[in-house]
Structure formats: C-alpha cells, structure tokens
C-alpha cells in the first residue's frame, strides 16, 4: 500500500489553484445512448470552453491558475425529458434546482421536464470540484451554451421537416412552432428516431439575464418532497443487498504508529472480517455493533509523539513561518515606510484566528463495492473525480475501473474534499469482494479525523492622514491562507504577504476559506483606524473606496439598518464590515447588546446586503446568505478546536458549540439583483463580514477591541 500523498493538504487552499488535468469524454458516445436511451446529446467540450472563457476574477494576486474549464452535457430523450450532466455535487447549496432552471430557461422546456445527473464519475464530465463558489459562474454559462446549441439543433430538425427557414420558427415550452403555417411539433417528436450527438460550436449566443423567464425566479428546491418525507437516500442511508458495516480502529493521537497487533481473540468472532494493513486496522460485520466488538477485541499498542497544543499555536505559527521566496505570496506597491511617515494616525495590531471544524450534520461516510476487480464508491464528497483518481492510484487501478457517485449530501462547507471515508470503506470492502461495505464516521471521528479551517496569525500596520485617507497598508497572514488577502481600499503604499507555515493540524478548505480571517483582521483594523481618526466607520470606509459595487452594498445595508443609529439603551453597540471575494460583494451590519453586570453579550440584529450579479434563484440565494450569516455566528463568537498532543479535546457537540436557535438574532438579508453583471457564486462571501461587524459593534458598545477569532466577548467582560 503506497503512502497516501495529499498535496492539497500540504498547504491550506493551494489545491484550489492547481489546474486539474483535462481529460474529457471518457464515456464513448454509443455507451452514452446505451445508458440513456436514444435522443439528442449536446456536449460542451472543455477545449472549446477553454478558448472562450477566462477565469472570472477572484480577489487576490494568486489566482492565475484557477481552473476555468469544466465540461457539461445535455441529453434530450424520446420522451421529451431533458437531462443535464455535471460533475458538480449537490451539497445543500441547491444547484440541482438552479441548473435545472438554467436549462429550462435556455432550451425552452417546462422546468418539470428537466433532470440533473450530478457528480457521478462514470456519467458526468470531469470536474475539479464543487468549491470556490464556482458552480454558478462556470456551470450556468455552460448549460446555457449546450441548451442554446440543443435548441438550435431542434430548430434545424423542424425546419428541415417543414422545409421552412429555421429563423421563422420559435422554440418554447418543449415545442417548435411555425406561426406562419400554424404547425407545432414537440421536442420529443423531433428527437424520435434521430439519435445523434453534437459538440457545441466555439461561440454560442445565449439569453441575457434581462430575458430570463424560468431562471431568476424563486423556484422551490426541485426534489424538496423527498426530503420532508425522509425518502431521500444520503450515503449514510444506503443499504444495498448483502451490505456489511465497517469500522476503523483509530489511533489515540495524530501520527501515532502501530507497534503491536494481536487479533487472535477477534478473529474467532463469527461473521467478522478483520483488515490489518500497516497502521490501518478495521473490521466489517453484519452490524456496526459486531464490527465495534471485534475492534474492541483486537489488542494493539501505539507509539505516540509529543505535539503542540492550542495554547501555544499562535506563537508557533509566528516562529515557524518559512521564508517566503515566491512572488505569488507577495504584493507590493509604493513604499509603506513613506506612507507611514505621511500618516497622522498609525495603528499596528495582531489578530489570531483559531482552528474551527466544518461539523456537517451528515458525517463523512461511504459505501464501497468491489466486483470483479472494479470499485464503486458512493460518498458525500465535493471532489468525486479527485477521489476517483486517488482510489485508482492507491489500489493500482485504471480510472475506468473506479466509479465515484455522490448522492445529494448532508452538507460539506468545504469539508468534504478528501477521500477519507471512501478510501477506508474501499480498503475494508476489498476483503469481502461482492459485498458492499458501509462506513459512517461517528461524530467523534468527524471532529478528530477530518480536517480543519487552519488557524492563523495576521499582523496589520497602517496609517491614515489628517483627512482620513489611508496612506499605508501592510498586512501579513501567517498560515491561514490567501483568499481575500488583498485590501479593496484605495491606498498607494501597500505590502501584503502570505507566510507559509508547516501544518500543525490537518487543514484544508472551508466555506470562505481564509477570506473570513483576512476580512476579520482588515475590517477590524479599519474600524480601529476610523475610531482613531474620530470618523464614522461607514463614512471612513466610503471615503477610502472607489469600487461602486462595494459602495452599493454598504449603502443598501446602511439604509436598511438605519446607520448611523442613535443608542437607545445601555450596552447597545453598532458595527459594520464589508468585503468582496469571488466576484460578489457583501456588507454586514450588526447590533449587539452588552450587559456588563451579567457578563453577557447578545447579537440582537444582523443586516446583510449582498450582490452577486444576476440572481439565478432568489429563494435559494436567500437560504445561502442567511445560512452563511448564521453559520458565521459560530466562528465569530465561540467555535474553536481545542487540541493537545495530537488529540482533539472538544470532539462532541456538547463541547464544541455550534449556533443553535437561541443564538440566532433578528436577521435581514438584502439581495441586490444586477441583471447587467454575470452571475457569481454565493456560497462563501456572505460569511466573511459577520465576525468583524459583530466585533466592531462590541467595540462601539464597550470601547474594548477584540482581536481574536472566536471573539468570545463574554471573556473580555469577565477578565
């Protein structure tokens, strides 16, 4: 068994910037029709897409390698059912609905006639993964293009049949109509007996947002009824015939190695299969209880190594930064010393950000099934093709012999990028070929053996002149990552730098990535500068901004929140923060109430204005924005992973606190629909400004500045 290499975890976020290999269309065309029945298929081949599309800009000076090309394809069956295929995964962000709307809108078919096949490596085109808020900006245009091309094919078919120029025909509601002769033919009729596949031409015109009829509407989640009735099968719910339950014996701490192994007692237990391979020990049995009992009967000894704890993490990160040699980690313009010399007010501060957990409610899980040396794995992952490649690599298989299928998943938030449970289930199932094995991580395993949003230290030094204009901005991020590291404010003298530090805990992607940490530091620092210059925090931001979209979200949020507000009660505080990332803009306003006597802090209200170009589904978007605000409350106020010598100390919901109903304040989300701007993703940006807005409101109430995430405002009152 080769040692697993996980390049994506060597450096938080890096894998987001690797261009993935482009190998398309492994599914032979005749196989495609065998699987789906006769009909018309239209393909967007990545090569064509590459030529037409450049990566939409994301903030940061390191985005040149963002993978831009992702294929999509579409099939119109003889029954008139349209099926879209994408490698993207549905993880609760509602892309199944959004992409169905897009196809229905562009192709001219009833929404009910559209199906989506997602994240199945045997049926869907290669895709790097469902991350980086990329589904809307990359996948909706591609489905627009294949749908527009398919519409063109149908129009031509009808034109030929009727011997009429195709530009006299209209394609609406699943039908081609010739108004001149009053003839109508359904797509289903046109397709019948006409099986063929076509790649889209290099340039396909599609509808601008202003002409959308199905997209842009608040259509409910497409298969919602499956969820309220409990019928939807998540990976954890699967029970294929002859299935066994798997369990993995976990080491007592990270990096522990197995020094002795004795399974003599466990081996004799009926119906149990033990798997021992290097440091990997697991069991399968007809029930989880039996598998558990078998592992309890295995006698093992582990060798552990001393490791650092959360108490010393921030000094460790500062002291162990690698000298940064690569230009892509650094952005400099003007002269910070000159800018500082010209400043009337100068502020230096350090911000610390803790490790936090994704804590998806559906834990990592997989069902693995080996048949005739071929492997199929069902699992909730955001990167099915990467998982497939890793499984192929580990088990010395070709990619064709591994299939990864992602059932719609019980959320991920950037936490389900790796093969983890899938690889473990496959290792277990290899011992019982023909019998599928299901492995569901326990909550404790989920808190311990997944990866975390990396901790970080951020140092900021800056100055403003007497008129309140920024003169210098120096920003150093140690370890937590580069997303959203660049300041959106106008300043001539800038030094921004990201410092790599070797991993302490296994770290990786997270909703918003490091943008949350970088926005927390920047927006808290901006608030401190405003206070020092004795300016209103909103006015100070506006004065240093020239980006109209950023100003627009600030204005919209301020109007709704009533900024500037007069305090009407003791302990009241108001705060604002804003930001832009991945092509979208956010401004968050917070009201807090501080009771010094009781030592309590309550977030009373959050107002957030968000703009991501043309809105594809305002109902789904509202869910994502409000959801990000509430999830953001946890990282802002109390979430932090505690660890010591390679052990996670708060590995239960009882000790790792998540936002619950009582934590949820009054919430208002203002969605700005810009039909003139291409749709950007919305999964991440709405989380970024929550923490600094709350921290700034706390400062407004108490004059106490909180510089760590989580803010834990009660602690500062009690100290």
């Amino acid at each position: 068994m080769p040692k697993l290499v996980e390049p994506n975890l060597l450096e938080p976020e890096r894998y987001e910037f690797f261009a993935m290999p482009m190998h398309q269309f492994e599914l032979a065309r005749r196989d495609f029709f065998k699987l789906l029945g006769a009909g018309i298929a239209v393909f967007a081949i990545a090569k064509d897409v590459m030529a037409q599309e450049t990566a939409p800009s994301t903030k940061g000076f390191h985005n040149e390698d963002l993978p831009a090309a992702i294929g999509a394809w579409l099939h119109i069956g003889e029954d008139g059912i349209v099926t879209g295929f994408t490698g993207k995964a549905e993880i609760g962000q509602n892309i199944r609905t959004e992409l169905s709307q897009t196809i229905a809108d562009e192709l001219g078919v009833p929404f009910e006639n559209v199906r989506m096949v997602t994240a199945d490596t045997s049926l869907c085109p290669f895709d790097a993964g469902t991350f980086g808020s990329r589904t809307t900006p990359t996948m909706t245009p591609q489905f627009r293009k294949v749908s527009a091309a398919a519409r063109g094919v149908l129009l031509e078919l009808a034109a030929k049949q009727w011997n009429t120029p195709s530009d006299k025909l209209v394609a609406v509601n699943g039908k081609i109509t010739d108004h001149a002769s009053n003839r109508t033919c359904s797509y289903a009729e046109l397709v019948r007996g006409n099986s063929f596949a076509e790649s889209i031409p290099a340039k396909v015109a599609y509808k601008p947002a202003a002409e959308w009829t199905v997209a842009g509407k608040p259509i409910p989640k497409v298969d919602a009824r499956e969820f309220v009735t409990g019928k939807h099968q998540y990976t954890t719910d699967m029970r294929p015939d002859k299935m066994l339950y798997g369990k993995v014996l976990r080491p007592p701490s990270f990096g522990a190695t197995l020094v002795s192994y004795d399974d003599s007692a466990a081996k004799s237990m009926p119906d149990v299969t033990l798997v021992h391979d290097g440091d990997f020990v697991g069991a399968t049995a007809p029930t989880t209880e039996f598998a558990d009992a078998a592992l309890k009967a295995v006698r093992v000894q582990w060798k552990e190594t001393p490791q650092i704890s959360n108490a010393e993490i921030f000094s460790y990160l500062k002291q162990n930064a690698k000298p940064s040699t690569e230009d892509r980690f650094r952005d400099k313009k003007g002269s910070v010393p000159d800018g500082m010399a010209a400043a009337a007010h100068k502020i230096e501060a350090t911000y610390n950000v803790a490790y936090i957990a994704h804590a998806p409610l559906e834990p990592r899980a997989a069902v693995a099934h080996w048949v005739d040396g071929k492997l199929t794995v069902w699992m909730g992952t955001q990167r099915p093709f990467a998982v497939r490649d890793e499984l192929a690599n580990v088990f010395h298989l070709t990619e064709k012999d591994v299939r990864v299928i992602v059932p719609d998943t019980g959320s991920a938030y950037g936490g389900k990028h790796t093969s983890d449970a899938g690889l473990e289930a496959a290792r277990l199932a290899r011992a019982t070929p023909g019998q599928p094995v299901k492995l569901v991580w326990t909550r404790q395993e989920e808190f311990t053996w997944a990866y975390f949003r990396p901790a970080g230290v951020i140092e900021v030094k800056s100055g403003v002149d007497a008129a309140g204009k920024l003169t210098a901005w120096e920003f150093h991020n140690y370890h937590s990552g580069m997303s959203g590291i660049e300041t959106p404010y106008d300043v001539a003298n800038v030094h921004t730098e990201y410092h790599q530090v070797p991993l302490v805990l296994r770290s990786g992607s997270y909703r918003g990535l490091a943008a949350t940490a970088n926005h927390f530091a920047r927006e808290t620092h901006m608030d401190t500068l405003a206070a020092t210059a004795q300016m209103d925090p909103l006015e100070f931001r506006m004065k240093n901004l020239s980006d109209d979209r950023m100003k627009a979200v600030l204005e919209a949020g301020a109007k709704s929140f009533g900024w500037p507000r007069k305090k009407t009660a003791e302990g009241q505080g108001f705060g604002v923060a804003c930001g832009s990332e991945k092509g979208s803009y956010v401004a968050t306003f917070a009201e807090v109430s501080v009771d010094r006597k009781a030592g309590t802090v309550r977030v009373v209200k959050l107002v957030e204005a968000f703009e991501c170009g043309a809105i594809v589904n305002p109902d789904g978007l509202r869910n994502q924005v409000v959801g990000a605000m509430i999830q953001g409350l946890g990282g802002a106020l109390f979430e932090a992973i505690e660890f010591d010598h390679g052990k996670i100390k708060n590995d239960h919901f009882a000790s790792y606190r998540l936002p619950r109903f009582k934590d949820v304040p009054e919430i208002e989300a203002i969605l700005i629909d810009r039909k003139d701007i291409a749709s950007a993703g919305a999964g991440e940006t709405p989380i970024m400004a929550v923490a600094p807005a709350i921290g700034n409101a706390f400062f407004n109430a108490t004059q106490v500045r909180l510089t760590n995430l989580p803010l834990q405002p009660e602690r500062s009152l009690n100290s």
Partner: protein
Amino acid sequence: MGQTIDLEVNGKRYPVRYSPDTPLLYVLRDELGFTGTKYGCGEGMCGACTVLVNGTARRSCQIPVSAAAGKPITTVEGLEKNGALHPVQQAFLDEGAFQCAYCTSGMIMSSISLLQSNHNPSNEQIVQSLQGNLCRCGTHPRIIAAVRKAAAKMQERG
C-alpha cells in the same frame, strides 16, 4: 442476536432480535430501513434522530431498543396519510425550510411534538423546543416560520 423485541413502528408490528441495549436508532435504520431518521451524533445533542414515542419527541439514539418495546413509534416515514403530507411537512415544504435537509426529519418530528402539546406556540416557545435540534446550514428563521405556519393550518382544521 439477543432476545426478540416487539416494536410498533408507524402502526405496524416488527419483531426484531437485537441486544436490548442497542439504541433504537440503529434498529430503525439498519434493521427496519427507516432511514429518514438520521444519525448525527449518537449522543442526543443534535436531534437528527428524533422520533415520536407515545406521541412525544425522543432522541432515538438515547433509547435502548428494549425500552421502546410495545410503545407506538412514529418516524418521518409514517407521517404521510393517503398521499397527503402532515401539515408540518407541508409547511417545511412551503417555506423551503431546509438546505442540505439532513436535519429536516428531526426538526419535523420535534415540531410535531411541540404542536401536539401547544397549539399556538410563541416564537420563544418554538426556539425553546427546537434548541436541541442542530441545523448547520443556518436555516433557523425559515424553520420557525414553518412551525408557525403549520400551527396556523392545524388550528384552522381544528
């Protein structure tokens, strides 16, 4: 496999052979296939496994299967009657009160339990009774709206 235990789930009797201290959750899911009831933590801290036992919301991961013997158990699969959703299910649907929806069954079962004992709960009472149910996607405001809507609908019907 332990002794035979008679379970009554969604109005049907199921004799099962399990060790008596196995949590009800695993028997419902793994043995009987009622997978609408979810595993979230196994410690009674997330509410994803909530079912009705004798009409009251209980965490099925915290009940030994033997303790549930002979008592009527309702899971999310047992709510639909003749193709019509329970008003709470319908209200969750109408409000779009889910994202990944993994918490949804538990939320629905807890809400039904609340509405059985309190026909017109205040927001505070809804918050109080759903405090033990986690929604990591942050759909709380819509869940509260759905419970209010269901309460109104159920009162209308009497």
